[in-house]
C-alpha cells in the first residue's frame, strides 16, 4: 500500500511539477519524500536480496532487473531521473554519501529513522497543520 502511494506521488510530481514543500535542499535526503528511503532500506535488509549499498548507483545505469521492485531503488531511480542538473553526487550529496559510506542496509535504515524524528515529526513547519482525531489523539 505504501509503495503504491509512493508511486502515485512520484507520478503527480512529474505530471504537475509540484513544488517541494519544506525542503532542506541538498542537506536533506530528497526534496519530496522520506519514508521510501526509510522503509526501503529495511526492506532490503530483511529480504536479504544481496544488492550492496555501493552497488545501487551502478545498478541504476544498467536496468535494475530483479531489483526493480525494491522501494529504495525506485526512490533513488526517481531522484536520478527527475534531477538532471549534474552528477548524482552533486544534486543529492546526502544520499550519495550514505550509499558510498555505509556497509549495511540496517545502518542505512537507522539513519533515516532518527532523521525522520528530528526533521519531520519535531519540525514545526511540517507538523503545524496536523489534525487530531480519536484514533490519533493529541492528549
Amino acid at each position, binding site marked *: *500500500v*505504501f*509503495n*503504491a*502511494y509512493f*508511486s*502515485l*506521488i512520484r*507520478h*503527480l*510530481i512529474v*505530471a*504537475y*511539477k*509540484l*513544488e*517541494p*514543500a*519544506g*525542503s532542506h535542499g541538498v542537506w536533506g535526503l530528497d*526534496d*519530496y*519524500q*522520506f*519514508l521510501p528511503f*526509510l*522503509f526501503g532500506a*529495511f*526492506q532490503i*535488509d*530483511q*529480504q536479504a536480496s544481496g544488492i550492496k549499498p555501493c552497488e545501487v548507483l551502478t545498478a541504476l545505469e544498467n536496468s535494475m532487473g530483479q531489483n526493480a*521492485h525494491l*522501494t529504495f531503488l525506485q526512490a533513488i531511480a526517481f531522484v536520478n531521473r527527475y534531477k538532471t542538473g549534474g552528477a548524482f553526487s552533486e544534486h543529492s550529496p546526502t544520499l550519495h554519501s550514505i550509499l558510498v559510506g555505509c556497509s549495511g542496509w540496517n545502518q542505512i*535504515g537507522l539513519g533515516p*529513522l532518527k532523521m*525522520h*524524528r528530528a*526533521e*519531520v*515529526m*519535531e*519540525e*514545526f*513547519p*511540517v*507538523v*503545524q*497543520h*496536523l*489534525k*487530531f*482525531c480519536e*484514533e*490519533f*489523539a*493529541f*492528549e
Partner: protein
Amino acid sequence: LVNFNNTKACALTDDAAKNTPAFRSLSLEKSPANRRLATFIADLASNQSSSEASSEFCLQILRLIDELSALTREIAPIPHARFGNPAFRDWHSKAAEKIDAFFPLEKHKHLAQYWIESLGNPSRIDYGTGHELSFAIFYSCSSKSMHYWRIGQNVMQCSMPIFP
C-alpha cells in the same frame, strides 16, 4: 478532526505563549499522537519482509490509488506552465471526491481527510514530508478502524505489496 488550537493544551495556556513554535513542538512531542506515529513507523520499518496485500481493505486502497493515478491522464497538465501546474487543482478536487466517496460512513470521514491531505496542497501546488506523514496517519488510523471492514488480519502484512 481537532486543530492544534482547539486542544486542551491550548485552552490552558495564554494566547501569546501558545502561538510560539517552541510551545507547539514541545507539546506535540509529548503527545500520545506522536508516540503512536513513531511506533507505527518503527513497526512498519521492521516488518518489510512480507510482500503481498492480504486484506480486502488493502486491495480496495490499491484499487483507488490506481484510479487516482489514471485520473492524471484525464486531467492533462496545462501546457507551458513551469513549476506548479494549475491542472493539479482540478486533479486534487476530483481525487478528493473519490476518496470521500470511498468512506461512505460519517464516522470515517476523518480518515478520508487524512488521505486527501496526503496528496499535497492544492493552493500552493506543492508536496512534502508533512503530506507523506498524513498518509502514515491515515493508514495507522485506518488499521485501528479495521473492524469496520470485518477483517482482522495483521495490518503490517500489507504494508509493502509488490507493485509493478
